[in-house]
């Protein structure tokens, strides 16, 4: 089994806010991230697929194809956007790094599964070089 990772970057703005809470509680839990005017990051997305190298091409997946899938499914929707205001999955879910990792998995997994080559193994999202979240799918305990 080979694990192959493709990295991509996107820039987006967001804020953390739970509408079921008071302003005081939002500020207590989320601190500066609760600023309603938002703030932004340069995110790094790592997409790891797992599979066996093809006997003819030697590829686990074609990296150009994977780049195009990431571009179509994620970059076109998230890059240079306000995640809370412009991305449907964050209309009712707080765009924490954890939830961004889960959302990236859900956007990519069907396309990678349909290609019947490799399977999606791991999503990692870096909000800064020091902060990241990781998701390995529903099947992972």
């Amino acid at each position, binding site marked *: 089994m080979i694990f192959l990772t493709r990295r991509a970057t996107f820039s987006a703005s967001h804020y*953390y806010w*739970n509408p*079921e*809470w008071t302003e005081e509680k939002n500020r207590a*839990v*989320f*601190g500066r991230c609760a600023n309603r005017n938002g703030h932004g990051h340069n995110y790094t997305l790592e997409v790891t697929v797992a599979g066996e190298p093809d006997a003819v091409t030697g590829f686990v997946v074609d990296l150009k194809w994977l780049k195009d899938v990431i571009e179509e499914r994620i970059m076109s929707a998230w890059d240079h956007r306000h995640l809370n205001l412009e991305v449907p999955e964050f209309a009712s*879910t*707080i*765009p*924490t*790094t*954890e*939830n961004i*990792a*889960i959302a990236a998995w859900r956007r990519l997994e069907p396309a990678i599964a349909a290609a019947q080559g490799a399977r999606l193994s791991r999503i*990692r999202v870096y909000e800064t*070089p*020091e*902060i*990241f*979240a*990781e*998701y*390995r799918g*529903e099947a*992972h*305990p």
Partner: protein
Amino acid sequence: MTTYFGRRYTLSASHRLHCDALTPEQNGAVYGKCNNPHGHGHNYVIEVLVGGPVDRETGMVINLVDLDAIVRTQVLDRFDHTNLNLDPLFTTQVPTTENLCREVFRLVSDNLSAGKLEYVRVEETENNFFECNNV
């Protein structure tokens, strides 16, 4: 539905790799430059990965502020700008980065407020690193 939250910290410390059970010649042979009597230092990078369910209300596995406080009080306040050999944890074991990694795993794991510690990774330099996922 386990999701993981990771965070990287830095600490600077000195150490000397030396085992009292070995002769000076053996220490020199095993540890090389790291056996220099006066020690030497590193900028260590400590990476922690915490796994657990995403809280429905906060959208978080663990609040980064809480994780920062745990790592700061348990690890950074203890080791940053210190000589590791003088810490009680290293009186009976050599402060290799393997052993530092295990101690950091134990200190963070025992005090975690949410989720489960998946691993601790300690980077001693850009070119070598150590990982521990249990003690």
